[in-house]
């Protein structure tokens, strides 16, 4: 386990990312506790994927510090990577490996013995309903299949923290259900999940706490009740209503005269 005594698995402060003149993420602070299912929401281009990339060491922040599972991502990147699983939004896999080969590769890269790697990859292929396609090259997989195999690879070493960027995009409802059950099981057993999605229903149903980012800044954070209070929304308002309010989205009820 990490070096910290408290149970904050993800701790980011003053996290900033600039691309030239554009500030994609502007000095944000995040705290996610062990076993929490944490939702990270925001409109397109708000900085969600940039934040996730920085949290898992795929992008170097311009400023700020990040600790994941008790380790500093800048100084102890390998320790962090040992403990995390990542499903990025853009799936870039080894196209010329078969699904089964890829999972064994991922397991072995985490230091697993071959026997264990084979056993776990077989189990995960079954869970993701990819057993029949296990000997097909990934380049011939559909988008949904790629997402499922990437998800399986993120799980194969049983990570302490799981970063999921839009995990349900392009996946059929049967697999969505299966993945959701896995995620629930994982959080019940102490895995922390950092999750982004555009589907508010899913976030509302799964996440124990939510942060909303807009134009690179956190505009709200907490449970549903806290967010309602922050947004000064009605008691029965949904997460979607709260989200729209917090990101100050203008939803025009009127349509164009010629339409």
């Amino acid at each position, binding site marked *: 386990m990490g070096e910290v005594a408290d149970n904050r698995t993800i701790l980011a402060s003053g996290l900033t990312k600039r691309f030239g003149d554009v500030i994609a993420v502007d000095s944000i602070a995040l705290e996610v506790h062990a076993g929490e299912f944490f939702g990270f929401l925001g409109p397109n281009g708000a900085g969600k994927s940039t934040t996730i990339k920085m949290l898992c060491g*795929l992008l170097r922040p311009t400023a700020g510090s990040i600790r994941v599972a008790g380790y500093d991502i800048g100084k102890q990147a*390998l320790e962090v990577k040992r403990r995390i699983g990542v499903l990025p939004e853009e799936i870039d896999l080894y*196209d010329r490996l078969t699904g089964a080969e890829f999972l064994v590769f991922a397991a072995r*890269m*985490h230091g697993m013995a071959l026997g264990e790697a084979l056993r776990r990859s077989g189990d995960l292929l079954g869970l993701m309903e990819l*057993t029949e396609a296990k000997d097909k090259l990934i380049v011939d997989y559909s988008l949904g299949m790629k997402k499922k195999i990437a998800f399986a690879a993120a799980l194969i070493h049983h990570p302490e923290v799981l970063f999921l960027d839009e995990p349900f995009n392009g996946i059929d409802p049967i697999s969505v259900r299966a993945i959701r059950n896995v995620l629930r099981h994982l959080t019940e057993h102490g895995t922390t999940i950092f999750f982004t999605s555009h589907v508010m229903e899913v976030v509302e149903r799964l996440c124990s706490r939510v942060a909303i980012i807009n134009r690179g800044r956190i505009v709200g954070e907490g449970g549903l009740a806290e967010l309602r209070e922050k947004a000064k929304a009605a008691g029965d308002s949904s997460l979607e209503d709260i989200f729209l309010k917090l990101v100050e989205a203008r939803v025009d009820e009127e349509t164009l005269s010629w339409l």
Partner: protein
Amino acid sequence: MIVQQALRYLYLLWWLKLRLMWRTYRRHLSAAVGALLAVVFFLPIAVGVAFGCFMGFRTLEPHMAEHLLRGVLLGAYLMWLFSPLLGYELTEEYDLSKLFLYPISPRLITSGAILGSLLDLGVLLLLPTLSVALIAFTKSAIAFPIVLLAIGLFLFHTLALSQSINLVSAGVLRSRRARDLMVVLFPLLMTAFYLVSQILPRLHRVNWSRVLDSRAWDLVSYLPSGLAARAVAGAARGDFGPALAFLLVLTIVSLSTLYLASWLVQHIYAGEVASTPIRRRAARKARAAPPPPLIPLAAVPVRRARFGFQLPPAIEAVAAKEFRYLLRDPYFKHSLMMAVYMLVVVIIVLISPRTWRPEAPRDLGQMLLWGATAMMLFMEAPIAFNIFGTEGPAASLLFLFPCARRHILVGKNLVLFTALSTVNIIFALVLSVLARRPQLLPALILWLELAIIMLVSCGNLISIWFPVRIVMRGWSIRRQSASRGLTYRLLHLAIAAVAGCLSTPLLAAVILPIYWISRFWLALTLPLALAYACTCYLASLHFAARALAQREIEIADALRPER
């Protein structure tokens, strides 16, 4: 009204093509520089060809000038018909199927694509030759419209047919398997062409006047390129009747091609034409085969170390992945085929009687042998100098794994060393036999093995500081961007020179005892050379592993596709 509407749409499609091209160049400076470099390189060639043709058209006898025109147009025609195989697409900037959302007929979409392709570099470079044909064969005012129409229709028909072939073969040619096959097939064809061009003239002298008078040439000249040439030559001679007749046939052929291309565009959009038979077969096979049984947990074989020594799992995993990529990735196949091509060229030189003529230097065979090994290593350098090149965007995934960075490098190096060694041993074996120096085989192999260690050592460092994304385009390799590709090629040349200097002691350790001192000294020089090569490798591994840990984000970024 209809014509006006059609013209407006054609103008719109032309504008779209122009705008998209312009945006590509503005957004990616590298693309602009690449296009500029292509113009600088190819324009003088195109102008040179046009000038040569012009001189030929003006100075040759009229009937020979007509044959020349037939030949030139046939060459252009065949080049365009085979362009889809080379990975060239007419409408690179925009996807035709996107235009089907709008109320434009398939014929207009196709015509727009063909007109838009006049902005493509390949077509632009053809224009000087076609222009000189127009100038040279316009002998009178009446001939001018016929010649102009014939050449214009020829160009239109050729582009439409190329488009059709591109569309109809899209399903097959753009399938992964076909592209992989093409990577092997094209260098093989090049090799075969080289062999034929080298051997045939020695066996048989071509009688060109007999070729031009042959029935085959006459029949070939009834292809649209020949029809255009006959119409042009007829108009130049003043035989307007036959010229108009050929022009009429060419017009019918061109319109039919346009209809064919439009029909194909429409049906491909509806998903009725382009298909991959390979996939269908695979689908049948998949249906027929029962689902594979799940491996029972207890039956999973756990491998034991055979020699009481086992590599770390990450090294094994990277090596296994690299080995599979070596077999499956077209880049490696392409590189291997280039080595085969190199081998064939050297073989031709070695078996040539000129190499072994009495007045040739006595040691020419041996010099060629050592020179060929250096050339071979030079050809292998790009693979060794860009070990992350084929990772592409998956590099970010690779760097997410928590294994020691040294293990990633060792895994990659092991496979690279094994692959290059295998190729080089075969190469050395064939060469030493053909050069009639089989006794040199052990020395050649030793030198090549030691040099590979040095190549890999330099490669580890340069791969980390200057990674380049490799993109396979048709049968050819393209670096991520032309400008960066060129810069990196120059850089690779410089590093190859450094690697060459660093390898000099290794070469000296092998050849000095053989040629100048005594073979017994090999017992001392070879262990020293091995120690030197291994020290260089370990030093490079140490620095490269440290640099990799610091630069992995930059490497992953460099290997991501350009947007």
